């Protein structure tokens, strides 16, 4: 993975000092709260329901064991012993005292981490495929370009006060695991002959106006990427709406101008760049960054592991876990493991300090020192030998993070909701837990198969309800919580926004109503190979709506 050199180190240290000064000026009254707010936000400090929250960047979701241990230390010493992994592959701590923030930033800087631009109206953490560098289906590892974008976007002088927040995601695989079409900019790596480049999608997003991104350019060669991004950002910075924060995202600009006119403006700006304005990243620098992401030397292993096969045969729990939580690896004899942070009845994405330390140890012992955070709020060990799976499983069981549900209905995305968040209209976590209970039986979940169920506690859609195969949105109606159900959303290469089914349900009605929908699917599917979203696409939504609203 990328390692800081003296320049990166210097910038992050200076940021810690700068933020320390900003906090001091706020405390002395020199800065008004209104003026301090954008500054603290650009450093990941939010005011939540109960306390300040600190959001820490995990660039493209990758962590080293040393970094994971430092997060565990922060959880233990400055929070209540746990952290919350987010849908943007970051981590946030919900119980941090403002006075401790500068010290925590110092601890982060010690392990080459920071909270820069994790909030505020600026370019946020660049996210990517959590299997990057390990997946069989990618054309190249997208992480070097994510790191290049990270550096380019860090303290960019022109784009620090955008109309609204700005999120970039990159994938290099045909199967889009980074949800690029619901990002402000989604980049899909492509190859034309010997040239690598990017298909550029702009103006996707969720929130109260969900939009699938427009294809703005089919192929921007990699050495022109940053210049092209500058052109998009400048058009947005100058022309994005600033009169209404709900209409300020780039998706609204693309929609209001129309895809064609927006594209014309970006292309015109790109064409107007004079030679001296071009970033013109030197080839040596592109190569330098790529070198950090060279694939580890995987010792040769037999394609079939006897240890692994024997453990599967003798341990049903292990067999179930490997059936659900492994992903094919590019090297024979190896696999990628999902560590689910979705135990039934737990809080989505939460991990205790001890669990973080277990994951760090496993990554160090068996996983080539590599941990990933997924945008679905799980953790990944991208490179492990099949031979080592029994030992890894045993350690995960002991740590309470061996839930065998990756991609199943209980592997939900759930926002913090009214229990933590000042924006929320309704609770999310308890509803998610109640739904999980109905589908908790492992055989039942497996029979249902792959299904993305996502829950948000308000229209800001942090729980990605628009792009869940089944989405649940909490709304407040005269002081009572209701839950609107939508069908047919998806985050992948066939990205779509779900359709709202009809009137909202009371929280206690949600689990049984969803069970009726799911059982309808099980009756109607052509075979177990036809997953829920495919049956829904084939038959339309009506049979499922009918089931949803049938009397209890």
């Amino acid at each position, binding site marked *: 993975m990328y390692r800081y*050199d003296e*320049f*990166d180190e*210097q*910038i992050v240290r*200076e*940021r810690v000092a*700068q933020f320390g000064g*900003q906090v001091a000026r706020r405390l002395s009254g020199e*800065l008004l709260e209104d*003026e301090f707010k*954008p*500054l603290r936000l650009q450093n990941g400090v939010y005011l939540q329901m109960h306390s300040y929250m600190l959001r820490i960047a995990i660039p493209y979701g990758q962590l080293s064991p040393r970094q994971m241990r430092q997060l565990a230390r922060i959880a233990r010493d400055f929070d209540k012993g746990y952290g919350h992994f987010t849908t943007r592959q970051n981590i946030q701590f919900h119980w941090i005292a403002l006075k401790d923030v500068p010290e925590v930033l110092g601890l982060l800087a010690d392990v080459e981490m920071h909270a820069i631009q994790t909030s505020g*109206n600026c370019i946020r953490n660049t996210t990517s495929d959590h299997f990057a560098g390990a997946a069989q289906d990618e054309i190249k590892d997208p992480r070097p370009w994510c790191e290049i974008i990270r*550096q*380019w976007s*860090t*303290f*960019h*002088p*022109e*784009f*620090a*006060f*955008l*109309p609204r927040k700005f999120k970039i995601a990159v994938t290099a695989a045909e199967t889009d695991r980074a949800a690029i079409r619901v990002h402000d900019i989604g980049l899909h790596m492509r190859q034309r002959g010997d040239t690598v480049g990017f298909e550029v999608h702009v103006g996707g997003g969720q929130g109260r106006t969900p939009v699938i991104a427009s294809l703005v350019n089919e192929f921007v060669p990699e050495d022109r990427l940053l210049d092209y991004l500058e052109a998009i950002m*400048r058009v947005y*910075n*100058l022309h994005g709406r*600033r009169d209404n924060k709900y209409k300020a995202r780039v998706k609204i600009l693309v929609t209001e101008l129309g895809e064609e006119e927006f594209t014309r403006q970006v292309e015109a700006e790109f064409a*107007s*760049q*004079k030679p*001296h*304005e071009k*970033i013109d*990243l*030197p080839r*040596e*620098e592109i190569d*330098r960054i790529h070198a950090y992401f060279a694939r580890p030397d995987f010792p040769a292993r037999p394609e079939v592991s006897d240890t692994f096969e024997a453990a599967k045969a003798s341990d049903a729990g292990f067999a179930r876990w490997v059936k659900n939580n492994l992903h094919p690896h590019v090297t024979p004899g190896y696999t990628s493991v999902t560590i689910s942070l979705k135990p039934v009845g737990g809080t989505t994405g939460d991990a205790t300090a001890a669990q973080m330390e277990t994951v760090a140890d496993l990554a160090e012992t068996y996983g080539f020192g590599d941990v990933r955070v997924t945008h679905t709020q799980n953790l990944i060990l991208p490179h492990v030998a099949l031979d080592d799976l029994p030992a890894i499983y045993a350690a995960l069981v002991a740590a309470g993070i061996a839930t065998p549900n990756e991609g199943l209905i209980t592997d939900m995305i759930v926002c913090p909701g009214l229990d933590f968040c000042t924006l929320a209209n309704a609770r999310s976590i308890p509803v998610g837990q109640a739904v999980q209970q109905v589908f908790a039986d492992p055989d039942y979940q497996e029979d249902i198969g792959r299904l993305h169920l996502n829950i948000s506690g308000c229209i800001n859609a942090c729980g990605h309800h628009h792009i869940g195969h089944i989405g649940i949105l909490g709304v407040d109606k005269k002081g009572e919580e209701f839950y609107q159900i939508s069908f047919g959303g998806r985050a992948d290469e066939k990205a779509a926004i779900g359709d709202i089914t009809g009137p909202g349900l009371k929280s206690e009605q949600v689990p049984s109503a969803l069970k009726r929908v799911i059982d309808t699917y099980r009756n109607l599917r052509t075979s177990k190979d036809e997953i829920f979203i495919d049956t829904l696409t084939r038959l339309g939504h009506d049979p499922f709506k009918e089931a949803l609203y049938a009397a209890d």
Partner: protein
Amino acid sequence: MPLIKHGAESDDPWDYVEDEAELSDGGYFTVRLSRFLAEAPTLADRNTRVGVRLASDDDVEELVPYLQHIQLIEIDFPKYTDGRGYSQAQLLRRRYGYTGELRAVGHVLRDQIFYMNRSGIDAYDTVRADLPSVLEALKEFSEVYQPGAGGQVPVFRKRHGS
């Protein structure tokens, strides 16, 4: 109102003149872009220095024919969270080669100064930051990741010896 430029407090002979007000002969005045464009042919003949105050939604391209003769362009930041002025500054400096004074006016706080300087703004009209804090802000980061109008060499060049 203190004006800080080139690392020092500076006297300011310039006055901003509202659209309705007359320009007197002699002196230094800035006017809005629309007025500047409308009166440009007559302004050149007078014994008066006229600069431009850009609003956030002004298109800097309209100024291009006049850039050689303008001594001062003010960029107005109506709210310090309004970042359009940074793009205007970068365009004026880097694309159109403007070399006169580029001054930030409006809601100008210490915490924008580093970004402003990097975007090519070289004078700060601010009631909210004194000279020492502006000088400190200008050096807040000793390394930068991007090229800009401020002339700092980005780290991707330094790393490879240029």
